[in-house]
């Protein structure tokens, strides 16, 4: 057992102490594990009153669908949301971390967060890890200076665009945008276009699938439409269900009764008698 202060909870950031052992295992011929990726189609566009973000809901682990309905639109601030593609743990961790930093910044400045603040915090973090934190993000929001939409690549480069797509289904979605996008879209036209772009990713890209999530952000108001469209419902469920004629053989049963969880209430103000 090492003498290092393993008993204190760590200060934060990454810890590299298992790297040597994992390298040794890889050299012995054992392949490293694959991580949960969000194959994904994520899109964003700017319409006349603000920003609309869209994402599919499939999470893959290699060729297997691990989660049929995951959430890829992450909260950053009341007026800023971020869609994430790439390694799922990285997108979740990086958006949670920047969301906390933005909240602390709001408390310090007393003002609403700006999209460009979130952008700079994200790109600085991703660049410093030189692309090893594999998170490709579409960041959108409406702040005091208007609606903004940015894309952030895993190595830390960013783009500012009126409409953007990322992920394995980005080409399918971009083809829809390039054909049908125009400036000054209304809310309903914008939602319809985003849903169409995500659907083209869902049906044509194998890494994206399941349902469409949409988030509409306008000045002072946001709407998170979870599962806005479900173009892939499961219709083949048998109503009878499974009946098992041969029961499983049990070798040993151990029952532990649990005591009821009792709530202790302090009775106030009963002074002791002399």
């Amino acid at each position, binding site marked *: 057992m090492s003498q290092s202060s393993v008993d204190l909870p760590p200060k934060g950031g*990454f810890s590299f102490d*298992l790297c040597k052992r994992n390298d040794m295992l890889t050299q012995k011929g054992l392949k490293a594990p694959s991580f*949960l990726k969000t194959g994904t189609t994520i899109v964003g566009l700017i319409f006349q009153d603000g920003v609309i973000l869209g994402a599919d809901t499939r999470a893959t682990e290699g060729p297997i669908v691990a989660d049929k309905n995951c959430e890829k639109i992450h909260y950053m601030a009341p007026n800023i949301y971020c869609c994430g593609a790439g390694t799922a743990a990285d997108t979740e*961790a990086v958006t949670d971390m920047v969301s906390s930093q933005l909240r602390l910044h709001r408390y310090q400045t007393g003002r609403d967060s700006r999209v460009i603040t979130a952008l700079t915090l994200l790109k600085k973090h991703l660049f410093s890890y030189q692309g090893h934190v594999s998170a490709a993000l579409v960041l959108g929001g409406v702040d005091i200076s208007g609606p903004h939409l940015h894309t952030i690549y895993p190595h830390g480069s960013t783009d500012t665009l009126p409409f953007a797509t990322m992920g394995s289904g980005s080409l399918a979605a971009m083809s829809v945008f390039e054909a049908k996008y125009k400036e000054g879209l209304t809310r309903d036209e914008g939602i319809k276009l985003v849903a169409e772009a995500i659907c083209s990713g869902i049906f044509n890209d194998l890494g994206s699938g399941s349902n469409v999530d949409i988030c509409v952000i306008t000045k002072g108001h946001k709407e998170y439409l979870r599962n806005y469209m479900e173009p892939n419902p499961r219709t083949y469920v048998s109503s009878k269900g499974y009946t098992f004629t041969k029961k499983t*053989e049990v*070798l040993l049963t151990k029952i532990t009764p649990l005591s009821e969880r009792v709530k202790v209430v302090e009775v106030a103000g009963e002074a002791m008698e002399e």
Partner: protein
Amino acid sequence: MSIFEYNGSAVVAMVGKNCFAIASDRRLGVQLQTIATDFKRISKIHDHLFIGLSGLATDVQTLYQRLVFRHKLYQLREERDMKPETFASLVSAILYEKRFGPYLCQPVIAGLGDDNKPFICTMDSIGAKELAKDFVVSGTASESLYGACEAMFKPDMEAEELFETISQALLSSVDRDCLSGWGGHVYVVTPNEIKERILKGRMD
């Protein structure tokens, strides 16, 4: 061969009506040789929270000891047990901390939260949480388990029916995987009791 296939494992958790079940196989192997048939993969954190860990056995045991340590500290400070959602966030943070040299295991967390509402979740080896409302699977037999659970699962099952379903799903999936099996270990937890059962399976 992948690092996860070194020891072999299968863990599954399912949600029922105000109850949950978590099950695992019992084999511990070193590649193709079996060295134990009673390996404990599912551990209790507190009366209403269980964690099953699949993957490299040494990391399974180390990670379990670390998590019990953190939970005991939490109990001392807060004078209560951790909620399952909080525990899932703790496990996710501990795994992500080792993002570039990860623990080679995949946890399956199952617990009863407030109002006895069942909670299950699984993560990959770097802490990407995957919450589900029906079932979660992990281990070398995970592909078969996905198929079996998808077919056999029904929402709102009572404890006895849930036990039967999860056992059948586990045994049929590990029968198709060389690296896991040698029986099953199932915990069915309701608000009033924990029922732990050992299943008889194929010993090959």
